[in-house]
């Protein structure tokens, strides 16, 4: 029985689009975990910062807006790296989790103060080109931005895969993620690898901010928080200790959310979170190391 019998093509395309965005976020989270063994709860705040920048610069020319978004997000990423990630490297996993959790709330609260100065919560981000428009592709109505999201995700992931597999820097990063100490013994520069991984995660956050503000123009302090939570869950369910399983996990939970949303009868769609998270619990009970992890693989967790 094909999936199309349960949900229509429209839902499938939207689900792939959602999965694509989540996959990008998953990579951002997975990269930092790989080199630092740190779960960055504050990742959504990077996206939020980018979104607010886009909102506050709505009247600027497009190129300037995009540049501003990248600059702000990358600056914030660097600040996080120095103030939070590096000092936490020797901390216990529980402390790391709660601290990045705290940083996430800290950034959200700061954003609230900055946002409320004009008296209202929320800023609107101007769209880009005609990306919010709906086009008809093969009989399916889909927003341009969804197609762009899928294309951008494919390109970004492809480039990243090439970087990791074919370049020396990529080799060093993979080695650091597998066994940091031995990598350092061989001369791999810890600082360079960490900074680059964090930088890449910032670039991805900025890209996600651009896509999300087109899809949902109202930026609030809680922007991307729900998505981050879901992606984090997806990453762990997929298997956080390897980048491709983490990415697949992020994509899968996005795709599953989209499909379930389409499959649920309208009056029950409010229970979507329960359905998705129940599925998550089920998967974790059956495969705690991750859905896509090798069954006998030793999980390189410090937790």
């Amino acid at each position, binding site marked *: 029985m094909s999936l199309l019998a349960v949900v229509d093509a429209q839902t499938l395309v939207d689900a792939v689009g959602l999965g694509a965005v989540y996959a990008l976020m998953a990579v951002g989270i997975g990269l930092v975990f790989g080199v630092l063994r740190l*779960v960055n709860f504050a990742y959504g705040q990077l996206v939020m910062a980018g979104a607010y920048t886009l909102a506050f610069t709505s009247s600027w020319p497009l190129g300037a807006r995009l540049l501003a978004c990248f600059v702000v997000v990358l600056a914030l990423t660097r600040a996080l790296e120095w103030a939070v990630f590096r000092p936490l490297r020797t901390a216990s996993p529980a402390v790391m989790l709660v601290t990045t959790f705290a940083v996430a709330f800290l950034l959200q609260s700061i954003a609230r103060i900055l946002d409320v100065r004009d008296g209202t919560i929320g800023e609107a981000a101007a769209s880009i080109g005609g990306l919010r428009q709906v086009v008809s592709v093969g009989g399916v109505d889909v927003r341009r931005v969804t197609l762009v999201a899928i294309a951008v995700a494919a390109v970004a992931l492809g480039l990243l895969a090439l970087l990791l597999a074919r370049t020396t820097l990529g080799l060093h990063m993979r080695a650091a993620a597998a066994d940091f100490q031995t990598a350092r013994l061989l001369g791999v520069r810890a600082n360079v690898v960490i900074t680059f991984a964090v930088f890449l995660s910032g670039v991805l956050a900025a890209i996600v901010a651009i896509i999300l503000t087109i899809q949902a123009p109202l930026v609030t302090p809680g922007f991307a928080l729900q998505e981050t939570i879901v992606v984090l869950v997806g990453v762990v369910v997929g298997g956080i200790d390897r980048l491709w399983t983490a990415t697949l996990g992020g994509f899968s939970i996005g795709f599953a959310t989209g499909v379930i949303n389409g499959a649920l009868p309208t009056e029950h769609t409010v229970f979507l979170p*329960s359905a998705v998270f129940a599925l998550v*619990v089920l998967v974790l009970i059956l495969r705690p190391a991750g859905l896509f992890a090798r069954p006998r693989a030793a999980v390189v967790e410090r937790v």
Partner: protein
Amino acid sequence: MNPRALESLVQLLVPAGLVVAVGLAASFASRSNEIHFLNAIVAVAVVVAIYVFVGNSGVLSFGQISFVAVGAFAAGVLTVPTALKSSVLPNLFPVLRDHTIGNVASLLLAAAVGGLLALLVGLPLMRLSGLAAGIATFAVLEITHNLLREWTRIGPGATTLSLVPETTEPLQATVGTLVVLVVAFAYGRSRLGRMLRATREDPAAAQAAGIDVHRQRLWAFTLSGALAGFSGGLLVHMLGSITTEQVYLELTFVTLAMLVVGGLTSLWGAVVGALAVSAVDSFLGEAEQGVDVGFTLDVPTGTRLVVVAGLMALVLILRPSGLTGGREVRLPRRREAAA
């Protein structure tokens, strides 16, 4: 009394005494200040409940607030006067709509509901550790929140549940929290508690020594759930109302951070963390409205959470073992005492 027994007594009495002191302050405080002290005391109850599981097992759970939530809503829904219930909460199941129970009964029910849910959830989940446990328990929080928010047959759904009798005066808050403290202390000192802590330090060794890790975690998780439910009952009777957002992400963050800031692995840490952070939080809450500290301190709205979160991040980065270093209260050692 031998030194060991005295030390144990001190480990219970000092935190308990602190709670009583805050309770006394609450009863002498003005009406507008009373809420701060009550908040602090109930916070102690919640954080200690969380500590019973997280502190003793070393397994990070983001789901304990689910049990506070179900406890709060159970106690709340069943203490709203029957006469009013059918008009404010028309969709309730008849068994919930047509009955009302007393104050103490509602607290016991809250504990029972919290414990039962924890047991059901814990049975499959206690096999997990680390990141998987964190995410799975977080999923439980999300499911609980979603169901409470959308299922109008068991509660008010997205609207506020109000008209709950405000029976958590200083006396109830203090006594209730003391009960939680004593139970947590007794568990910690018991054989069960010690076995669980052994699994925290070295799971492999503990298992080799014959300790059933899964079962010990389940005991603690269930007890933690019951105590959390009970605290939820105290909470709803303190506020006189409850919404799903009040027992969701922000409370999860604040209580977990209170525990870690105080010191994850000790009861004393739980109490200190809860009281210290509540104090800062309350003070800043006042400062947002303008407070007199010799000069008038007025900070923009939202500063409260910024400072609390910032302080927590700082403590965690600079002193990860928490304010108490994760240890219980110690008697000052006399020079001539043998080891």
